């Protein structure tokens, strides 16, 4: 019960941290390379604890992101639901990939996410993004192992601490 609660705290804390990282200012030069933190955290939880993060929660979390970032309401919700769907579909395969292969899969997921985002922009009449728009998935790929190892390590510590 207590372990469950600690795990829940970790879940919530990771989501809040992702929101803060997403809003954090960076130097002009690094800005296009900011990974999509919300996406990475959603991928992690969908991969590791699908009973905690289904499509509905991903959608809700996306709505939170929309409200914080002030774009179109429903934009990130749709993208994160699609992201979670793909991860949950291929979960059993993704989980047993070695890390580099998993990172490549994450790259594919994030590029797909960008494509969806471009479609949304096209429909809402926003100007098309520049080439720098496509750098972020690569930064996300490089960030993935660290995100994965960090959350995994904290979870493992919680587990040993309890037992």
């Amino acid at each position, binding site marked *: 019960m207590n372990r469950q609660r600690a795990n829940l705290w970790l879940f919530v804390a990771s989501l809040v941290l992702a*929101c*803060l990282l997403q*809003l*954090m*200012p*960076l130097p*002009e030069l690094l*800005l*296009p390379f*900011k990974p999509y933190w919300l996406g990475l955290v959603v991928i992690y939880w969908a991969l590791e604890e*699908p009973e905690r993060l*289904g*499509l*509905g929660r991903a*959608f809700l979390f*996306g*709505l939170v992101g*929309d*409200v*914080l*970032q*002030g*774009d*179109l*309401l*429903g*934009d990130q*919700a*749709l993208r994160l*639901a*699609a992201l979670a*769907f793909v991860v*949950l*579909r291929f979960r*059993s395969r993704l989980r047993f990939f070695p890390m580099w292969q998993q990172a490549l899969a994450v790259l594919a997921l994030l590029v797909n996410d960008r494509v969806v985002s471009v479609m*949304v922009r096209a*429909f*809402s009449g*926003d*100007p098309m*993004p*520049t080439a720098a*728009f496509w750098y972020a998935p690569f930064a996300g790929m490089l960030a993935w192992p660290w995100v994965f190892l960090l959350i995994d390590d904290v979870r493992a510590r919680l587990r040993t601490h309890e037992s």
Partner: protein
Amino acid sequence: MAIARNDSSPLFAAGATSTLRLIVYLAAGVALMVADHRGRYLETVRQYLHLAIEPVYRIAAMPADAARSLRLAVSDRQALTQENQRLREALLLTQARLNRLGAVAEQNTRLKELLEVQHSLGMGVQLAKLIDVVLDPSRQRIMLDAGANQGITVGQAVLDAYGVMGQISEVLPTTSSAILITDRSHAVPVTIERTGLRTIAYGNGTTDQLEVPNIPVSADVKAGDKLVTSGLGGGFPAGFPVGVIDSVSADASGMFAAALARPAAALERSGDVLLLRPLAEPVGPPAPAASGGPPVDTSPPPVPAAPPAGGAR
């Protein structure tokens, strides 16, 4: 089929992720986006949630503030060390004092410049500070720490000591966000100060460039020309510096010239900004006078004689 669904073996647990649910959520997302695009409901939602949202912005800005003050502290020390090497020990104290004086004097001139703008405008102006968060890297937006409670309204022009920065695009109770003139979806009506040519300056998404397309080839435009707001369209009052033309070249079609300009405002450096109050119309027809004469409607209006109901024709 039903048995397969109930089987919770991890390899085949596809029940929770049925395509139908995805379609439902995607449809919900699309419906929300369409509704928001039509009705701008998100701003209303943000109005209601501002108590929850604003602390998040402040917290997200914290590491950057800390980093900036740290960088400031470190660079000050470096400067002092270099001076220490260059000067004799006796001069050290004076030098440090002078440095501080310099910083204060610089701040003083900057504030004076701001004040001067405020005086020369002769119109309602208020100061606001930037909050350092990035809302969306592909759009050029800034957050300010003044909102509806301070009387900010959508569309107010945002200036710094050197020129036009942008305009307010969204107002929350104690914060507001402004769209910069360099945003890809922003355009300012400008005139070229030297020749009076009217044109429009568009943002192109980078912080140090404005685009001025569609200039007639015969027009007299050259690098170094100053762009000021023309006041057309009513968004910005006339005569504020917008930028300086950097280069002029023929556009792809060869029918027009296109120029690149450098924004006059210090878009990346400004910490304090000025917000112009919308101008009240000083001249115009006087307001209709209150009824000075005797009240008109105390005596009942004369009742016209009712025509006979069944008049013979």
